[in-house]
């Protein structure tokens, strides 16, 4: 036995820049020659609602009794021009998701769940299905660049119309539905050959700028005799200017989707590197409305990473009138459920991380057009789960609002919030907790 002391070894050190995920993506790109396509929204760590806290009532504020005193949750959307605004019992709505990206039973379940709690659901690329209309008491009809399945009869059947200019996962991008999800029914609805990759345009075919948009909105109003609220949906990039232009073009409601908002399929590089976080988008949007004297007159719906009642309350406190959920609603239906772990493993992933929604192999039967997989989703049971979840979110938001002394969720305000980080304080324009400091704002 040698007396020579053993040289201590340093641990293998991974690069923070070239982390294991990055290395795996380089290898994948080198092997395939094609960028990675996936569903869902941005997965990177971003400043978010978790970085904000509410200041509950104390000596200087007066709370409401948790189980006694009323805290309203309803919201009316489309009060600016529409003859028939829509009245929701909860400010949590279901975001646009297409039949095609989602299975028929999944769309039905979304309608059932939303209707059970008195909120709206939204169509997507490909048009409106009778099942969806039948199960959705309040249905918003998306008017998209591709105009796949766009039908004036469906426009008249809708309760509101959403002109989609962009979405948070891919502002400036179109859509893609890969051939394996273009079933006979989807192909017929979209007027495409079966099995081709369906490309959705990134720009509307018959208007190009805000002046044209004003005429387009007027056309939609004329066709529907000024009855329906008209929303304009934008992906969060330059929210102050986009909201200003949408309002000038005549929108009743602006939908603002941050980069955590999901998509059925697009390039990973697009999802993670284009657009801004939801938290960063809300205050400029609200500022735009306030500067025009239109806050609460043109309603603001915020989406992108809304997960629970605290997120709802925070979005509303920052000035939104309502929120929309997509990814969270799919999880409530049964997406990424750990009980399907062995099947996710067989697809090379794991429960909670499955995002190859474009491939149509979803073991939960949600993001698929495979007849056998679709059968796995019971739309009645899944709709019940969604209704439960929506009810919980609403109650959670009420818990917070009452603690802040508010008799309606819309009475929440930025003054009820503080931030945990400098970044979130700057983005949300609320003080860093324990200070009166809002980065970027001059104190006089």
């Amino acid at each position, binding site marked *: 036995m040698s007396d020579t002391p053993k040289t201590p070894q340093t641990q293998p050190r991974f690069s923070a820049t070239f982390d294991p995920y990055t290395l795996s993506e380089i290898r994948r790109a080198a092997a*395939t*020659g*094609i960028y990675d396509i996936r569903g869902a929204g941005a997965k990177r760590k971003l400043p978010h609602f978790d970085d904000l806290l509410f200041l509950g009532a104390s000596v200087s504020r007066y709370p409401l009794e948790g189980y006694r005193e009323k805290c309203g949750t309803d919201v009316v959307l489309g009060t600016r021009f529409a003859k028939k605004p829509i009245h929701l019992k909860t400010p949590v709505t279901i975001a646009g998701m297409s039949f095609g990206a989602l299975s028929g039973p999944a769309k039905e379940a979304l309608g059932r769940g939303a209707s059970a709690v008195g909120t709206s659901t939204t169509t997507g690329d490909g048009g409106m299905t009778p099942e969806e209309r039948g199960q959705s008491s309040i249905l918003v009809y998306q008017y998209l660049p*591709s*105009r796949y399945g*766009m*039908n*004036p*009869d469906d*426009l008249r059947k809708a309760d509101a119309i959403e002109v989609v200019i962009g979405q948070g996962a891919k502002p400036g991008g179109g859509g893609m539905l*890969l*051939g394996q999800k273009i079933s006979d029914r989807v192909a017929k609805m*979209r*007027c*495409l*050959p079966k*099995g*081709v*990759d369906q*490309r959705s*345009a990134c720009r509307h*075919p*018959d*208007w190009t700028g805000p002046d*044209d948009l004003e*005429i*387009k909105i*007027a*056309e939609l109003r*004329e*066709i*529907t*005799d*000024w009855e329906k609220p008209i929303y304009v949906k934008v992906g969060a990039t330059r929210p102050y200017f986009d909201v200003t232009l949408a309002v000038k073009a005549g929108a009743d409601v602006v939908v603002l989707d941050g980069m955590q908002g999901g998509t059925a399929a697009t390039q990973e590089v697009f999802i993670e590197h284009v657009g801004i976080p939801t938290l960063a988008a809300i205050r400029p949007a609200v500022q735009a409305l306030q500067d025009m004297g239109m806050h609460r007159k043109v309603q603001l719906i915020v989406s992108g990473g809304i997960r629970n009642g605290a997120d709802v309350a925070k979005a509303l406190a920052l000035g939104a009138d309502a929120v929309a959920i997509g990814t969270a609603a799919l999880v409530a239906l049964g997406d990424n459920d750990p009980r399907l772990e062995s099947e996710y493993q067989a697809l090379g992933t794991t429960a909670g991380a499955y995002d190859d929604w474009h491939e149509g192999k979803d073991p939960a039967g949600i993001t698929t057009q495979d007849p056998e997989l679709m059968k796995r989703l019971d739309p009645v049971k899944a709709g019940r789960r969604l209704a439960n979840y929506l009810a919980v979110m609403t109650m959670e938001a009420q818990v917070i609002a009452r603690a802040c002394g508010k008799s309606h969720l819309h009475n929440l305000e930025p003054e009820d919030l503080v931030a945990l980080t400098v970044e979130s304080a700057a983005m949300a324009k609320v003080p860093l907790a324990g200070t009166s400091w809002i980065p970027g704002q001059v104190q006089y």
Partner: protein
Amino acid sequence: MESLKFDLAATPLREVNQYLHSPASELNGKHVVIDNPNGAHNIAVGLKSDIKVTIDGHAGYYAAGMNQLANVVVTGSAGTGVAENMMSGVVHVKGFASNAAGATAQGGLLIIDGDAGLRCGISLKGADIVVGGSVGSFSAFMAQAGNLVVLGDAGEALGDSLYEARLFVRGEVKSLGADCEEKPMDDEARQILVDLLAKSGHADVSPDSFKLYGSARTLYNFHVDNAGAY
């Protein structure tokens, strides 16, 4: 045919369109003349009855947009998006048409006697368009189904990213878009062309003077080797 006249210089557009949205049972068979359109936007949009409408002059954006069943004539020229997303019926522009004429139209027939601007028949989804003059660049971009007949010339990138629409052009094509190629004129296509020429007042024009263009279908499913085509 019972005739009715609206003067857009005196009557708000809303009132005219509201009347034109009356139940089909009240409108079928009627002829409505709209005087003094003076380039107003959204005239006669969303019609859904078997009615004849004459817009006597020039129309702005989206004239006869989303038309169903109705027969709409614009005696002058039409702005952007005439007959956009038409489902059925006939829209006839006797003058020129601006950009995106017949965009996304799913059915019916759009006749333009003069020229049409950029992106004529963009995302066409089954309707027929006959243009007596020429069409601008990017016409029939991503056109999925239906027929575009051009008696004059076509601009750049005709039929870019085309799906299954047929493009008949009599004159010069400045350039073809990605995945668009000349096709042999088979009997079926020739008959479609003959019928459309007859329906649009061009029965005297020989179908043999046209070339047919369609999709090469090489971009139907993404492959990295085709990335340079985009």
